[in-house]
């Protein structure tokens, strides 16, 4: 475990120290399997539980960004980076509408999805927050679920609220909360200097820095 934590921290440090001109890490080529009949998996039923959080980290940015993941383009100042292990069919980056990973009533900003992978890295962002975390991130309030297939940029606040309500009605949110067990902060502690705290929170300049950290987080998970 200590070895894993060390890898994660080193990976983060390396990425955070990189200059602005460094391109995002190229994801390794997906397996070039060409067996006729393998095909793209069918879209699983939604709503559905989000899966297991393997890694997470709170963040806040100096320069807020406008999210493209909801039709009203909310302003984003903070949120959580999450790395999930989930149903690969659910996370499959199709060209047609895909199930939307929701954090409450806001679609998560899924980063660089890889076909066939069961690992998802996403930014569970808080829409239109007036200011930075106050007093500090409350990870226990983060409720994730897979909701009905849609194009995130076409999801409205109203349709998002309805999707999340459907998930709650279906018992998906309750199941998610139960799945986090007795220690919901465990994923956060995987990178924490103080294992009793969710700190250190990532204080990033902008979204690009957050994305770099998120991809490094995924790499650290894959390296385990």
């Amino acid at each position, binding site marked *: 475990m200590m070895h894993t934590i060390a890898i994660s921290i080193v990976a983060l440090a390396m990425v955070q120290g990189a200059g602005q*001109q460094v*391109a*995002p890490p*190229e*994801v390794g*080529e*997906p397996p*070039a*399997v*060409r*067996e*006729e*009949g*393998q*095909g*793209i998996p069918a879209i699983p039923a939604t709503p559905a539980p989000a899966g297991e959080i393997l890694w997470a980290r709170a963040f806040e940015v100096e320069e807020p*960004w406008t999210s*493209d*993941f909801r039709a009203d383009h909310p302003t984003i100042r903070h949120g959580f980076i999450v790395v999930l292990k989930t149903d690969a069919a659910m996370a*499959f*980056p*199709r*060209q*047609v*509408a*895909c199930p939307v990973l929701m954090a409450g009533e806001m679609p998560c*900003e*899924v*980063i660089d*999805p*890889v*076909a*066939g992978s069961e690992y998802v890295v996403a930014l569970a962002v808080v829409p239109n927050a007036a200011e930075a975390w106050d007093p500090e991130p409350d990870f226990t309030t983060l409720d994730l679920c897979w909701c009905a297939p849609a*194009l*995130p*940029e*076409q999801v409205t606040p109203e349709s998002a609220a309805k999707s999340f309500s459907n998930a709650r009605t279906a018992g998906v949110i309750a199941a998610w909360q139960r799945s986090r067990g007795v220690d919901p902060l465990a994923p956060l502690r995987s990178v924490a200097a103080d294992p009793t705290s969710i700190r250190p929170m990532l204080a990033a300049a*902008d*979204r*690009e820095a957050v*994305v770099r950290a998120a991809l490094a987080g995924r790499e650290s998970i894959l390296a385990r």
Partner: protein
Amino acid sequence: MVYTQHGMERRLAVLVAFFVFLAPMAQVALAACPPDLDGDGQVGGGDLASLLASWGSPAGDITGDGATDGADLTSLLSQWGSMCPGKDIIPYELAGTTLLAAPWFTPVDVVLQSQMAMAAVDANRLQGLSGGSYPLYVVADRNGDDWQANTDLHDLRGTPQLWAVNPGGRAANMVEVLNTGLLDIAGGGNLFMGLGVDLVLDVDGSGTLTPGDVIDGMDRAGMVVSRNPVLAGPFAASTLSTYTASGATSGFTTSRLWYPTAIQSMAPQPLIVISHGNGHQYSWYDFLGTHLASWGYIVISHQNNTVPGIETASTTTLQHTNAIIGQMNTVAAGAIANRIDTSRIGWIGHSRGGEGVARAYDRLVDGTYTPTNYGAEDIGVVISIAPTDFLGSASANPHGVPYMLLYGAADGDVCGCPDNDIADSFNLYERATGWRCSTYIHGADHNDFNCCGFEDFAGPSGTAIGRTEAQEVQKAQMLAALQSRLRGDVGADEFLWRQDQSLKIPQFAATTTIVREFDPNGAQDQVVENFQTNTAVTQSSSGGAVSVVNTYLGEGLLQDANTAFTWVSSDAFNGAVRGRTSDTERSGVFSWADDSTIHWELLPALADQSDQSDQTHLSVRLAQGPRHTYTVTLAGPCNAAFRLVDANGQSATLSINAYGQGVQRPYLRTGYGTGAGWQSEMETFRLPLSDFAEQNAALDLSALVAVELLTGPSHGANVGRLQIDDLLFTRP
């Protein structure tokens, strides 16, 4: 036929000897052309008037009996429309290719350099050539002004070949244009796919173009001897693995660049921008970037913001295009400095990126996005590979920009399914109102068109063509579209509409089925029927009466009306997943179980309908009705024939399968109900009007009164079901 260099040299030596021996024969006087009484070079109305004015006297004697009488009239009418050498330089389509059925030869512009080039002449129409032998020159392409300035004939092969013309039509007078392999296609930095040449039959053997000579290519190239578009072009290519685009969306700034290594010694070249699909990578198009750079293009492939949706993807396309123009003097250490021709831009997008490029153009048209370095007028062509249709009729819309669709019939993602408009790529094609073409490939899946995407094949077992084959088609077809629209390459269009049996690229497997649509939407087109107006089935969109024999012609929106592909009579356009309910493209549909005819009247009062003498082709698009009982029974390509009828009652008929394989059988993919067969595969057929004239020299293309579509046992398909659209006369 492929010649070795040694073989070509031997043939050339034999040819030269043959020519020297027979050259004097070229001086043989032309046979007379008696019916051409007024000496205008063609048998027509003026000759008839002269004959009638000379009735009873020797002046109008054609038969040689010393009097002008009924026998002369019969002779004249039997040669109506024929052309007579001797008075003027005669424009005539000499270059062409052989056919597997009547009329056995058809004029075309393009021949691959590795393949046999043919020429033919109709001695029935070119009165007086029969029995003579004449030098056939292959000369550098000149336009009319050039020919006026310089009439010298200089054969690019070194020496002309001698052509002995027999009595009879083209079928009796087909010759191989020898030694096209000797032509220097790539010389002089030629950026076209091929070398345009003119063919001249030097009737008087003078070595110059003079009255009485026959020329193919007075105004445009008579024949293009083309390089193989699958193969690398003439330029070495260089790559910059990554650069960072200024001003692009954060997280999506990385791009890859390809360019001709010697670009600084070239004039500014077109820019091609590749926008990948969802879950794809910018690094997956090396095969395409390298290929296009080898043909002289500057190409980038950029990170594309596809996860949020189409709007964001279109933004990254717009941004990266702007960025590379702004950075061309510094990127790659100045390698492409000032070498992008910013007025010639092509966009290629895949899946969500394929819709993204259409949306990007729509935003330029709408004025909702204004780049600093280019505008809508600079986008010369948009190409979508299996695009989605999230945004619908108004926004996923190529408008009038030249548009190409590339699509695999075994696509397991953007599937062309009847229950999901988003997955119906042909929707975008149908919305394009300008020059447009599509290439639909049986056995190709969504990710065959990149290097590394997830295997998504969804066709019948054993029909997958694989990535290598799909990408060879992709490279050839995209290059042709880019050459056509960004370089004005006259030889390119034929790669986009001729059937494989007619223009065979060696790398394409004989078993691969490629279905092509091509519609130039030219201002000069004369539409007979496109079903968009006059929606009563008894009247065509051009206003003429429509009648049928032994069939029923239906009209309606070109849309599948339910969510399955099972054939039901309530869904006349079953399989036509080509539009949303907000789209307006209409079509016709009919079926037959006996000989049947659809007759479209051309209104003689309207000169633009009856006079098609300045057009070159009758064009139509047809698709078999997927899973219809008759389609299942036919179980193969469907033949049909078109007949033109003129005001004198003369007619000529051509079968579409003479030009290839007829209307392709739908890809036998299953799902969405019972039976096999997937979406409607509209396929364009362009029948040369000169072939109709070859069938009947008396047919007067300037006085047509009807077009007829003939189907049934007498025309090669006992039963059948066809969707039909865009019946029109056209020319290049």
